[in-house]
């Protein structure tokens, strides 16, 4: 995830500077993100083997959809992408389920010292805001009104929350061996 974020941010900035858009990188990173999140939630969420496999398959299917829509339906330069919205829904739902599973099987460690709490909080916060903002962008692009500044501010804020939460996850995960859920 760190490598993915690092590469996609750098490529995005590079393309923005060279061709005035980061869209191709944005579409490609969506494909990888679907797979990565599918794998992450496959290992994290305590479910039966069948349901975990379903999450993994869903992740791969969404990744394939990202490629197909990027190449044949929306094109690589279209923004906002359908796949980004699908990814937001996928990650938000899985994060909520991760919260639920944490309540179902609590551990003695204080909540703020649990890596997965920060991971789920950051993911839910960022991806539900992204889903909302992408929907609003779509509306704005169809109308003559310009995108208001607060929209970018909200995205920046959500980005800071996400990176802050992920950084905390990495620090906490490095300190302790993270528990993953054994298949039932």
């Amino acid at each position, binding site marked *: 995830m760190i490598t993915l974020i690092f590469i996609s941010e750098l490529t995005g900035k590079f393309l923005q500077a060279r061709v005035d858009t980061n869209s191709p990188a944005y579409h490609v990173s969506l494909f990888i993100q679907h797979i990565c999140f599918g794998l992450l939630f496959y290992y994290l969420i305590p479910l039966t083997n069948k349901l975990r496999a379903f999450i993994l398959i869903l992740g791969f299917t969404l990744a394939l959809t990202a490629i197909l829509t990027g190449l044949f339906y929306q094109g690589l330069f279209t923004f906002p992408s359908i796949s980004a919205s699908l990814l937001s829904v996928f990650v938000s739902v899985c994060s909520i389920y991760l919260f639920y599973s944490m309540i179902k099987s609590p551990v003695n460690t204080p*909540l703020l010292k649990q890596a997965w709490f920060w991971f789920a909080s950051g993911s839910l916060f960022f991806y539900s805001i992204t889903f909302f903002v992408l929907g609003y962008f779509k509306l704005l692009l169809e109308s003559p*009104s310009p995108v*208001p500044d607060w929209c970018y501010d909200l995205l920046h804020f959500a980005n800071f929350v996400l990176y802050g939460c992920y950084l905390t996850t990495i620090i906490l995960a490095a300190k302790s061996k993270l528990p993953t859920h054994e298949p039932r």
Partner: protein
Amino acid sequence: MNPDSTIPLIAGTALVSVLTVFIILFVILYKKAQLRFELERQQFEQALLESEVEIREQTLADIARELHDNIGQIASLAKIQLNMLPPPASDEEVEKIAESKQLLQHLITEIRGLSNSLNYENVQSMGLIAMMEKDINRINKSGFVKVTFHPKPTALSLDSKISIFLYRMFQETINNILKHSEANQVVIGIEEKAQEIVFSIEDNGVGMPKEKLQKLLHDSTGNGLKNIKHRCKIIGASFNMESRPNMGTFISINLPT
């Protein structure tokens, strides 16, 4: 501000607020779940400790029965056979046989005493005070140490399980005193107060420095003190131990009534 963006702005603010409330709510619910989990864990630990003690008591009772019914019987049989021997030819033989009979009698008494103190059913039938007195008399007879029982209540209104626990703690403490304290005087007391029963044991032995006491209380690898603390935990009693070099050791167990 563009009027078209008012509704999305409100919706965006509402979304951020909902997410924040969701996470706060999750934190509260998780805290509750953690408390419930901790309570369940404690209950499980308590049940485990109780069954551990129950198994230990059952084993001790089995050993006591075996001592009384088997080894005690063999010793009695040996004594009967000695009594049935033809009259000895010399005074030396008379003396040896008399000495053997005396030793056997002592062995039988010791086996009975040990069997009685090991079997929890005796604590239930005779009561805690009587059993403790019996053990104290036995220790005093040995002459190694002088044990005094003061204050001594005439009767104690205690649950039989708690009586067994207190009796075992008394045995364990006496055992520790005999093994480590080098004391020649021990004072045992049971005091029934308004809200608690205070069980105390004090000796005039070598005692120990503060650091050794702390190590003993918190990192002890020995089973004796660990067992006493376990039993205290099960019956909800508090355990206190004080000691100073050459000033003896004082132990108190406060049991809320």
